[in-house]
């Protein structure tokens, strides 16, 4: 079947999270994506866990593999002028889209800044993404998504009101920004198709983070209210909590937004006397006695199996969800039906589960294919695309311009 971006050409100079994930959308949808990376200064994710058999190695990381599935890899030591020249040829002679995620001065240092490339290629589309954007007094702020997530306000609103903030697992803006980047690139491609004009897209990871909480921002800019962490509570719902269940660290999330849902919950629990109390009959009553209600609910859940409670309540029309551990995801019949985990054969890691698709396009289904070894596709890129001869390629490898680690 055709894929949406068959024939599209992307050069990915990203590293760590945002750039590579953004480029992966296009690989899944059929584009040829060349990930330019380096052995001398390898992407930190190549060693990062989880690793095949828990052993770190440049071709052993599922963390890297997930974000780079379906790409070709070209290893270049960019300290060499010849490496910079090869990268520049790829951009000028081949690419439709360039993705990069360095702090702002790096691409300029290599002669690969949008302004270096656009005179010869006014139709080029380039996405530059960094923590705080390409302009402004703090453009050069360097960090990872766990910094941008803190700056964008996410830690302040995670955890319990009587405790210090909690981390949001990982590097949260790295999870929010790529969807924005992919959206902007697709829109820029359409604009180019109609106007012939390229685009330089300056995507701030901080701004992407803030753009995902617009109502929280308006509550401050209009009402002066500063949101903070509140456990699992929500003004609109009660019960709205996570309750302990039978077993080791097993929990059920339950969310009741209407009195009708509450009555359905009470029936599903078998109409226990405590739940029929008048003070719990209305949302206002439940809210007024929320702490007590939470204790009573947990007394009911904690002797029960979380998945059985989930199924019982969903049958009754009540929103309930097992707090799934990662290992539960592989047993989730819905994710299975969706085909979420894409088990693919990686040349070094063997059969491994790739995080899969968030959407299904009925007529142009995306495909997840394995991640490359470091520098694996030097022949396809150098000979196939850039028409270097065998001798020239051998020389580039001999000089350390072209790098690889193929085991």
């Amino acid at each position, binding site marked *: 079947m055709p894929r*949406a971006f068959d024939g599209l050409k992307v050069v990915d100079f990203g590293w760590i999270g945002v750039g590579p994930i953004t480029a992966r959308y296009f690989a899944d949808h059929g584009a040829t994506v060349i990930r330019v990376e380096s052995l001398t200064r390898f992407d930190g994710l190549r060693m*990062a*866990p989880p*690793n095949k058999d*828990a052993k770190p190695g440049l071709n052993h990381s599922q963390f890297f593999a997930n974000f780079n599935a379906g790409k070709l890899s070209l290893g270049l030591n960019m300290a060499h002028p010849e490496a910079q020249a090869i990268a520049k040829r790829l951009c000028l002679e081949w690419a439709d889209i360039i993705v990069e995620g360095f702090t702002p001065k790096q691409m300029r240092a290599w002669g690969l800044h949008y302004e270096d490339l656009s005179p010869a290629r006014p139709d080029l589309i380039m996405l530059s993404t960094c923590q705080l954007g390409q*302009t*402004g*007094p*703090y453009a050069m*702020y360097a*960090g990872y998504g766990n910094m941008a997530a*803190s*700056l964008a*306000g*996410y*830690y*302040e609103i*995670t*955890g*319990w009101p009587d*405790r*210090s903030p*909690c*981390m949001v*697992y990982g590097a949260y803006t790295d999870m929010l920004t790529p*969807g924005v980047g992919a*959206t902007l690139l*697709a829109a820029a491609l359409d*604009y180019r198709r109609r*106007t012939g004009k390229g685009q330089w897209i300056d995507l*701030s990871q901080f701004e992407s983070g803030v753009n995902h*909480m617009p*109502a929280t*921002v*308006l*509550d*401050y*800019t*209009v*009402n002066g209210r500063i*949101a903070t962490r509140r*456990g699992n*509570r929500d*003004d609109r719902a009660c019960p709205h909590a*996570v309750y*302990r269940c039978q077993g080791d660290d097993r*929990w059920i999330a*339950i969310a009741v937004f209407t009195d009708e849902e509450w009555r359905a919950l009470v029936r599903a629990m078998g109409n226990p006397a405590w739940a029929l109390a008048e003070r719990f009959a209305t949302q206002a009553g439940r809210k007024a006695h929320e702490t007590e209600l939470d204790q009573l609910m947990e007394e009911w859940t904690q002797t029960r199996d979380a998945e059985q409670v989930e199924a019982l309540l969903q049958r009754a029309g009540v*929103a309930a969800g097992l707090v799934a*551990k*990662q290992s539960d995801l592989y047993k989730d019949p*819905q*994710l299975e039906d969706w085909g979420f985990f894409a088990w693919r054969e990686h040349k070094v890691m063997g059969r*491994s*589960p790739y*995080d899969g698709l*968030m*959407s299904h396009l*009925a007529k*142009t289904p995306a495909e997840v294919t394995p991640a490359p070894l470091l520098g694996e596709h030097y022949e396809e890129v150098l000979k196939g695309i850039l028409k270097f001869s065998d001798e020239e390629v051998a020389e580039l490898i001999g000089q350390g311009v072209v790098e690889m680690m193929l085991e």
Partner: protein
Amino acid sequence: MNTDRHKDYLLTPYRVLDLTGETGLMCGKVLGDLGAEVVIVEPPGGHPARRIGPFYKDEVHLEKSLFWFAFNTSKKGVTLDLSRTKGQRLLKELVRQSDIVVESFAPGYLDALGLGYVELSAIKPDLIFTSITPFGQRGPHRDWKGTDLTLQARCGFQYLLGDPDRPPVRISVPMIAVKAGVEAANATLFALFHRNTSSEGQHVDVSIQATGVWQMMNASSFPIHHGVDQARAGDRYNAGFGNARAILPCADGYVTFFTAGGHMGAPTLYAMGRWMESEGKLPDFMRGKKWEEWDLARLATDLKAQQEMDDLNETIATFLATKSKWEIFARAFNERILAAPVNNVKDLVDHPQPNARGFFRTLPHPELDTEILYPGHWALMNNAQAGPRFRAPRIGEHNEEIYCQRLGYSKEQLAQWQRSGIV
């Protein structure tokens, strides 16, 4: 680059019909902010999301929901009762003139009304029809209910958040459907790209649960490769890089600090050493240390290494406890330290960086006799702009424009539909 407000928008030629409920609103907002003409179709009397707070000056009112304002910028609005035959006929007329329909009804609901993908694509063959639902259009859980809390649980993300001695938590504001809306926007545009090269429309099926799994960074395959589940660790960093306290108290709040060795962490630790030395507070054990060689991979198995990590972590915590958030940010910026203040919403609105970039922008709300400050552009671009263009629609605000000027019905006809509750 600059913030030139006269630049083109990227999606100007396209028309979108937004039929979504509370969990689908973000998709249309994104497409509208990028320049598409997005018309949100509300039930007569107003969309249920208008009842969601917070409210303008805390006045509970259908025209004052900040939730509504936030997720419906750059949209026009019409009212229409889709449960009635005449309403369904009018919707089909609108679909004929649209490129994209976005909806978030329970799977099968629109089909039952004769308004599903099969029926609508029969009258508009190149239509892109995007469905955003908790679990997708098929599968054993497709009819399950899902809210932010229960979906954050079911996608695996929530298990990773919160203090170990208490239940897992969600981020305290709804996030999962917001992310799903953005993912629906890119999937929709991918389908549109295909349409423009093939004339072929299609159905796009977005699972909020699946978009939620993509919040977990590297966690999903730990049980496969390491035989363990990652678990919540409160204020500590817990992504398999060792286990250090990542949120530290400072003089006026909290900061996040990334204690790591090797390539990633060494520059930070040298810079902290210089800072501490300049105040005569550098402890001997940090002196002369080669941080590049300080290997975090050992932490998993080596108790001595974990002790070293804990000592370092506490030493830095003690030092930073006397500094303000802003001092720490400025020092982090100048010395490339992996640290950042734990900003609250006031801090981030006041921050000089987004303001220098013109990120926050005011939109006029003449009915409230005010302007409201919104976040902001989606990116800065040299040949285009993307961001909120105008405020969310009032109930039925564009009925006349769409039904009379666009579809050609008379004002009398519109008035009659309004009297009979169709519009």
